[in-house]
């Protein structure tokens, strides 16, 4: 088992930062997800942890041992890639056994460990099949089994579900999480898919432009995003963000409507704006509640069924469309005028200049 510490770890290519100096502690048994769009530095970070990529600054500790300059093979870490990288001429069983054979493990031990791990992944029935004959999901199971069989101190996974189709991805997502819960091996998992990150991670490291934007639990990145990037990136659709001018406890929106901010926010918004200034109001689609007596007027831009619920897309002004989640029974023709209110506990505010979230507590 392993604790992984990154201390001021950075990666530069010439003058360009692929990863700006970052600190991160991954606790023993934790499942940490590195999440961000392509080019944000998440894969480079993972490769630095594995030793496949050299750092250009900082230190990496594995169980308090400095491994910054150790080779990948000396780090006791297993890597699972997006592409399965299986040996096509070997059966699944031989593929899984391979790392143990390479280490010169005894035959009986190998047999036992392969059986154990294939039971865990429910793949006993495919052990004698070659990878070419297996479905994408089963191939990825073999790749996982091969990583697991070594019982490494930590797992690093680089978009392992990226090459699977949607159905399999959902199933494998649950299986990998279940596996982690049973095994409790420290895992660092890279993905660009925020749903995967939310569903799987104990904590999520959101990255953008080579910088760590937030390190938090799924609940925190969803409800209390640190900045506008995280607010937009997490959620499907992302957080609704509406520009307005704040004065005297109300936010004045572009089309002349005003939103009275919840009392508990007034002191911190006064402090943030000096009593009068621009703000961005943020709220999740499920925080908007449509009702005849509500505060904020809008027009139905589109309404669509998502199966178990309906999403309303409301136009506040020609440049602003917000999304409101409602029941599937609701029918709203396009261009119907509606009004909505916000669940006060789900309202957030951001500074348009810094893009950072404003804290509801006034700092002394």
């Amino acid at each position, binding site marked *: 088992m392993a604790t992984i510490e990154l201390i001021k770890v950075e990666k530069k290519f010439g003058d360009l930062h692929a990863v700006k100096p970052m600190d991160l502690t991954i606790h023993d048994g934790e499942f940490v997800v590195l999440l961000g*769009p392509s080019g944000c530095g998440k894969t480079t970070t993972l490769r630095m942890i594995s030793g496949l990529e050299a750092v250009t600054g900082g230190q990496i500790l594995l169980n308090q041992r400095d491994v910054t300059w150790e080779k990948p093979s000396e780090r006791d870490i297993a890597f699972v890639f997006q592409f399965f990288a299986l040996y096509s001429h070997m059966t699944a069983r031989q593929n899984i056994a391979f790392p143990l054979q390479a280490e010169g493990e005894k035959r009986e031990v190998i047999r036992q460990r392969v059986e154990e791990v294939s039971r865990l992944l429910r793949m006993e029935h495919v052990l004698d099949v070659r990878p070419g004959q297996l479905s994408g999901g089963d191939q990825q199971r073999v790749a996982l089994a091969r990583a697991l069989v070594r019982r490494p101190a930590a797992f690093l996974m680089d978009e392992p579900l990226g090459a699977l189709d949607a*159905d399999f991805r*959902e199933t494998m*997502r*649950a299986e990998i*999480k*279940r596996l982690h*819960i049973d095994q409790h091996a420290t895992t660092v998992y890279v993905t660009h898919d925020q*749903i995967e990150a*939310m*569903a*799987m991670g104990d904590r999520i490291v959101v990255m953008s432009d080579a910088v760590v934007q937030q390190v938090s639990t*799924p*609940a925190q990145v*969803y*409800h209390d995003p640190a900045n506008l990037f995280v607010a*937009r990136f*997490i*959620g*499907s*659709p*992302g957080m609704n963000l509406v520009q307005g001018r704040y004065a005297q406890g109300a936010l004045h929106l572009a089309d002349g409507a005003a939103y009275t901010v919840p009392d508990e926010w007034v002191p911190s918004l006064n402090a943030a704006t000096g009593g009068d200034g621009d703000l961005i109001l943020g709220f*999740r*689609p*499920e925080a908007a509640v449509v009702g005849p007596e509500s505060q904020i007027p809008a027009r139905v*831009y*589109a309404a*669509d*069924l*998502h*199966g*178990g619920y309906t*999403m309303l*897309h409301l136009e506040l002004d020609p440049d602003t*469309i917000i999304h409101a*989640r409602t029941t599937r029974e609701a029918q709203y023709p*396009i*261009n119907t005028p509606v009004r909505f209110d916000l669940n006060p506990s789900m309202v957030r505010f951001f500074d348009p200049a810094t893009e950072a979230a404003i804290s509801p507590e006034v700092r002394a």
Partner: protein
Amino acid sequence: MSNVTLRHITKRFKDVTALDDVSFDIKDGEFFVLLGHTGAGKTTTLRVIAGLERQDAGDVLFDDEAVNTFAPADRDIAFVFQQYSLYPNMTVFDNLAFPLRSPLRKAPAAEIQTRVTEVAEKLRITHLLDRKTAKLSGGEMQRVSIGRAIVRQPRIYLMDEPLSNLDAKLREALRIELQHLQKVEGSTTLFVTHDQIEALTMADRIAVLNAGRIVQIGTPYDIYDRPATTFVAQLVGIPRINLLEATRENGTLYVPDSTVRLAIPPGKALPETFLLGIRPEDVRLASDGPLQGEVALTEPLGVETVIHIRSGKHTLLSIVPGITDLKIGDPIAFDITQDRLHTFDLNGDRVGE
């Protein structure tokens, strides 16, 4: 715009039957979606309507007139592809104007100016009109492609996965705009996709295609609430529908090796053994619920949490709002919404109506 009808269309490529007796009817002003996996025959259907492919049997009718012998250019359709096919060295304006300037139409300059300006406003690309398309982002390019299709008023728009190459956020934004635009303009549209969310959210009606055959045609509510087969039931809905083999026993409905035992709703005629489908939102946690299980896994998605409930040898998925405190291994009581059960025979066809 027009009604478009396909009557008993069959199309073979050598030994492979790509389309097998496909019939449907797209009404004037309708947003009609063809949904299916890769290779189901969706694109072939579009190409047959466009005249790019000639069917081996059956008729294509526009406003009740057979167009089987019409060349593509004479069918007056507009096509939007997954890959943007824009002229990179032309400006956005010239790309949009291109269909109007074609030798077939030769619209006057003043009309072109008006139409292009209108379309650019609708698609929010007015600020891009003087740019070369090679310099645009993927989302901007696809807006221009859509603009080039809607700058004319053809008889039907044919759209082949136009949003598939865009990233998730962009796809969602453009989907909503396309939906709005189609409703406001009342344009007849056939939209092809493999993405069930696109189909559910955009369509007036959906035709589900599997291996060259139409499996079901209906509104998004029909398809989601009354799937005709287990294939359709599993194709739409995230997370996927729970599908369990069940038996009939003394007026109850029973899933072997599980705790699921329910009264058979009155008037439901069921075979001895059948498949029971339950949407995850219809598996409701309730402290006084009659069914028992154990939490096997939780997946918080923010707005809701997927709970995997272990019931005997089976696992049922349930969706609950928000983020829960439930822990793995917690005992749990639940209930199943009785009037939303789906039942299929062992061949996968819906039964018990």
